[in-house]
């Protein structure tokens, strides 16, 4: 037997079956063909590029100008020769597309300043504009409009090249890329996508969250995957175990199709639990709610038997459309949700942008958040809305106006001090006064809560609990901030450990502080839908868990197979562990013993 070929930076050298390990970001099994997106799909806007991508960026720009020229030549051929005026205008536009002031300068800028084509082109255009502004003759000066028109054509083509490869696909495929931004993931035509595999990303990257929300299986964090397979190759994607099989054998495919079938049967089986009340064997109730990002998921909320929405991520309303929503659009959206679920509560989190989330669309002219060196610790979330108060006030008005149509709970994210919360409440109360002054109806007793996700809020939870109706623990950020792990960084993502005793103790401390003040404490991170973590969270005394809707039936089943004394013991036990692996190794033996049906042998 010859030795296995080394992993050279080439296309695959053999069609030996191969297994690659990453992390399972969204559950499900797919056997299908792949579409490899060679370029990283990008956010729109201006950004810097690593040196090795500059040649590709120059090529992208040259392709765009070439295509713009082809389009103009085609346009020109549609005019009769006698329309010489129109023709010569088009000719002058064609020449502008080739012009060194545009082309050479843009290419130089891409290379010299390591910036993307859009940015470089805008800079070149700025230089041309300056020159033209100095021209005394008004007619020639106004010819800048032609330059602008030509540049817009190129900008348009550059923009179209971003997401386009997917527009052409007819068959369902597994999409493979280096990375997707959350916006890219949302724009993908979900009906044609069987699954995702990416090179970058930790388990709770927003890509993963969105993939889960869309119910599309995904494996992330497989380095080199875009080089190891080519468009058209057949793979198996195992989103449960975070594995990808390249060139699978017939047997493997058969086996995985069988797993997929079994999973389906299992899902049908747990559907039975949707109808049952969420309580332990001895009658201890825990409210199980849903995390959603769009009103389109309300069907799933009801289908999976959620007792309301524990987290509505309101930012999707802002970037899904091309226009910024106004107060009435937000009001209509919130009213629809509240009225649909009434009397169940709907918890709307105020705009949580910044960091890696959707800030491009909402940036006001003076803000340059892309220049923040450390966005996770920067102007994000509540800090952002306190900075951009017009947005904040508009959203609060829309929420309050909707509050008479159902049961609203307002959730303020990322509060890190009592003073900051006081500023929030000052604005909130002012908005209420304004509405009252305008004679607008709203629910004056609407519940207000904060997300506890910054370590300072955990430590000061006893103080913060005095001013709110409920706490909601956001574990995604709490873990990132307490363990100092960037969840999107593939090198350290494996150290992102939700079951780290430090995290568990912080949860416990927050629960105790809330209960001492008589308020409810819930948890709405991805952890609430992680089946391994659920018994632990129940053991820490949380009053409600909010998770992706599809996770609800299984979690309810676990809850109904538990008893509260046992859960308390489990909570006490894990808090004594010294690190994450110890917690996991304890659970490895505890869970199959306590929940044989759920964690027994048929689970790997």
């Amino acid at each position: 037997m010859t030795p296995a070929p080394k992993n050279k930076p080439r296309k695959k050298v053999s069609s030996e079956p191969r297994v690659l390990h990453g992390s399972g970001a969204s559950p499900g099994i797919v056997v299908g063909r792949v579409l490899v997106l060679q370029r990283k799909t990008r956010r729109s806007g201006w950004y810097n590029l690593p040196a090795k991508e500059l040649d590709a960026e120059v090529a992208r720009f040259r392709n765009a100008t070439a295509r713009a020229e082809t389009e103009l030549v085609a346009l020109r051929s549609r005019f009769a020769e006698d329309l010489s005026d129109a023709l010569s205008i088009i000719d002058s536009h064609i020449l502008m597309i080739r012009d060194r002031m545009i082309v050479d300068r843009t290419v130089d800028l891409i290379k010299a300043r390591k910036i993307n084509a859009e940015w470089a082109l805008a800079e070149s255009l700025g230089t041309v504009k300056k020159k033209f502004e100095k021209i005394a003759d008004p007619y020639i000066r106004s010819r800048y409009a032609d330059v602008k028109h030509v540049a817009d054509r190129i900008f348009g083509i550059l923009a179209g090249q971003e997401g386009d490869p997917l527009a052409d696909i007819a068959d369902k495929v597994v999409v493979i890329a280096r990375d997707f931004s959350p916006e890219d993931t949302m724009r993908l035509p979900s009906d044609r996508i069987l699954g995702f595999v990416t090179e970058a990303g930790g388990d709770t990257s927003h890509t993963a969250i969105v993939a889960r929300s869309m119910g599309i299986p995904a494996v992330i964090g497989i380095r080199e995957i875009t080089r190891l397979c080519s468009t058209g190759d057949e793979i198996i994607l195992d989103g449960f175990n975070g594995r990808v099989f390249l060139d699978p054998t017939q047997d493997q495919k058969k086996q995985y199709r069988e797993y997929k079938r079994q999973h389906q049967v299992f899902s049908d089986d747990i559907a039975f639990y949707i109808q049952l009340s969420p309580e332990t064997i001895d009658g201890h109730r825990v409210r199980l709610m849903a995390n959603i990002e769009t009103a389109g998921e309300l069907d799933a909320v009801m289908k999976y038997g959620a007792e309301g929405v524990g987290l509505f991520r309101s930012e999707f309303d802002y970037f899904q459309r091309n226009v910024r929503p106004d107060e009435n659009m937000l009001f209509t959206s919130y009213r629809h949700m509240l009225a649909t679920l009434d009397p169940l509560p709907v918890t709307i989190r105020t705009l949580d942008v910044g960091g890696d989330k959707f800030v491009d669309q909402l940036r006001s002219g003076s803000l340059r958040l892309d220049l923040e060196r450390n966005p996770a610790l920067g102007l994000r979330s509540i800090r952002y809305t306190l900075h951009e108060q017009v947005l904040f006030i508009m959203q609060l008005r829309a929420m309050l106006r909707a509050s008479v149509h159902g049961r609203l709970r307002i959730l303020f994210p990322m509060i890190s001090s009592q003073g900051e919360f006081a500023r929030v409440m000052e604005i909130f109360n002012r908005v209420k006064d304004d509405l009252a002054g305008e004679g607008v109806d709203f629910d004056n007793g609407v519940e207000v809560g904060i997300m506890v996700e910054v370590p300072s809020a955990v430590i000061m939870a006893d103080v913060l609990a005095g001013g709110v109706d409920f706490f909601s623990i956001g574990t995604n950020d709490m873990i990132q901030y307490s363990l100092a792990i960037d969840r999107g960084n593939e090198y350290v993502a494996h150290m992102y450990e939700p079951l780290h005793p430090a995290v568990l103790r912080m949860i416990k401390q927050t629960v105790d502080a809330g209960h001492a003040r008589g308020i409810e404490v819930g948890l709405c991170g991805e952890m609430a839908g992680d089946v391994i973590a659920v018994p632990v969270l129940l053991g820490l005394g949380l009053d409600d868990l909010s998770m992706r809707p599809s996770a609800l039936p299984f979690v309810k089943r676990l809850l109904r197979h538990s008893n509260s004394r046992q859960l308390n013991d489990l909570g006490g036990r894990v808090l004594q562990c010294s690190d994450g692996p110890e917690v996991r190794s304890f659970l490895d033996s505890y869970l199959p013993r306590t929940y044989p049906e759920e964690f027994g042998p048929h689970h790997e």
Partner: protein
Amino acid sequence: MNVLEKTITVDVYRGVHGRVAAGLARIARQHAVRLCILHDDEEIDCSSVLDVLSMAFVSGAQVKFRIHGKGAAGAVAAVEKLLAQRGEP
């Protein structure tokens, strides 16, 4: 290599606008010459319409051309003809 210099007056009603600039570029290509304008002691190549436009020659302006290449004489004649078109009165 032929180099020819000639100052030509712009008679075009609107001055050297987009179509005229495009015309200069076309003449350079058709006659296979390097067609330049001497402007502030600089030689500006007419292959860039934007450079030509940004010099903003209005009607009546005296433009000094320097033409490199075998086809220089033919190119000069074509430029004279182009800039003499009054058009659009």
